């Protein structure tokens, strides 16, 4: 049986204004979690639906996730303090599929960097993280602690590589052969990465976002468009994803 858990918040950090990093005590979730899966969180306040948030890291009975305050739900979530209990379902969905020994590129943009931290650690990879500007750069130390080939990119050039993470990745791919590209980020980044991967014939996995209801595959509200036919033209992001083979996704 799966369960809804009440998990104690044990650490709360504001990474930069409006972006919070939470660690909760969640032994059952931690035990079965995979990189790329998500939590479905009851944020409280006047919200009716849960909010999907990716698992950023897990182990030893703890689960870490990070989020940006966007609207009502995430604003309420940010109000929890250490010692409070947070109601959540998880781990949900299908995570990234890694192959031992593969050489990979890991690319994340904005808050999309959180779910790929585990990939940066577990794979032999070059990591490209994109942010709008220097003030929004987050998780740099976390990534550099687990991977020695991390490139931080800023759109305005105020820090690190001057330009989009996709451009930095493109340059890297000119010189290096890789077996897989993993990506989580805003839709324009996902689209561009899919295009590059297809052009270069490199297998690629994308982590998608869609508005959700149940989070467990029952309500069919969270679908994305795929190459499937008939009913399979639309697949649930919550159960078939959130990680999809890029070839399958239609933007």
């Amino acid at each position, binding site marked *: 049986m799966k369960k809804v858990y009440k998990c104690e918040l044990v650490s709360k950090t504001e990474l930069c204004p409006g972006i919070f990093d939470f660690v909760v005590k969640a032994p059952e979730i931690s035990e079965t979690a995979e990189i790329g899966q998500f939590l479905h969180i009851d944020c409280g306040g006047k919200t*009716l639906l849960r909010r999907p948030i990716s698992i950023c890291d897990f182990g030893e009975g703890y689960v870490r996730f990070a989020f940006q305050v966007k609207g009502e739900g995430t604003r309420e979530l940010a109000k929890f303090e250490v010692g409070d209990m947070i109601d959540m379902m998880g781990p949900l969905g299908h995570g990234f599929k890694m192959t031992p020994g593969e050489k990979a590129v890991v690319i994340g943009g904005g808050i999309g960097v959180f779910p790929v931290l585990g990939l940066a650690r577990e794979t032999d990879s070059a990591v490209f993280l994109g942010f709008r500007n220097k003030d929004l750069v987050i998780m740099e130390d976390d990534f550099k602690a687990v991977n020695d080939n991390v490139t931080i990119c800023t759109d305005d050039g105020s820090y690190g590589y001057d330009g989009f993470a996709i451009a930095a990745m493109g340059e890297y791919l000119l010189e290096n052969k890789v077996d897989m590209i993993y990506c989580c980020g805003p839709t324009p980044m996902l689209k561009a990465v899919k295009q590059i991967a297809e052009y270069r014939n490199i297998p690629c996995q994308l982590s998608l976002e869609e508005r959700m209801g149940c989070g*467990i595959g029952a309500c069919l509200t969270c679908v994305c468009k795929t190459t499937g036919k008939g*009913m399979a033209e639309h697949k649930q992001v919550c159960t078939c994803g959130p990680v999809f083979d890029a070839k399958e996704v239609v933007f």
Partner: protein
Amino acid sequence: MGKLEIDYCGVKFRNPIVTASGTFGFGYEYNDYVPLEEYGGFAAKGLTRKERAGNKPPRIAETPYGILNSVGLQNPGVETFAKYIMPELAKTFDTNVIANMSGNTIEEYAEMAEILSETDVALIEMNISCPNVKHGGLAFGTNAAVVEELTREVQKRCKKPLVVKLSPNVTDITEIAKAAEAGGADGVSLINTLLGMKIDINTRRPILANNMGGLSGPAVKPVAVRMVHQVYNAVKIPIIGMGGVASGADVIEFMIAGAKLVALGTAMFAKPDLILDVKREINEYMDRFNIDDINDIIGTVELN
């Protein structure tokens, strides 16, 4: 502990709590959280004659105490359900399955009823009210004469109890309920979703790709209770009540208004194990008021 068993159109339900079509998939997902045997029965995802891919995403938006959805009847089609899904459900779960169907023409509805009649479903719920399909639902659900004819034609080829699911998007729901009864319906269920809209003021675009969608959740509950009450007084056939049910107290309220079975829907998105709380609360209520049999509260509202 009082008796919870309900007889609905000759079908035995372990308890009065079922689920609302489209919120519960084909049962498997929620069975991972609470065994389906805990429910009186469950309604499967709405079926159409042929498989459908449904509407474009986004398909869901949160509104005050409610949600809008525009799924648009994504489903594998009635034949796949009858041939592969239902036999598997019957083998796996010891509970009543309510099949829910939507059609574009009277003939389509009748064919579907015929196909579903050959399966192990307990009831056939005829959705004449889904607001998400062009040319479909609403036209049927809002015209009493059409509802009566549709029900009569479908009933001719239906060998299971036929429950007509009513739309709240009408001026007088009792007229439609009476038309269904006159056409030979064995029961009615209500309410389906209320047509609504949500606009992002920054982009001036609706959140839903379909622009409009069906409102459900606690926001619609008072409307649903009112309509169940009115329909209870207008027809003799039994009612499945739904719309915003989120607690045992809500189930009791719908039953007092006149529902014989009550469905959980949107509220389960946040609480996949809601049924357990609901049953506990109902038992507490029955103990508190010394009610031996849940049937004794149906339609017992005392008006001021």
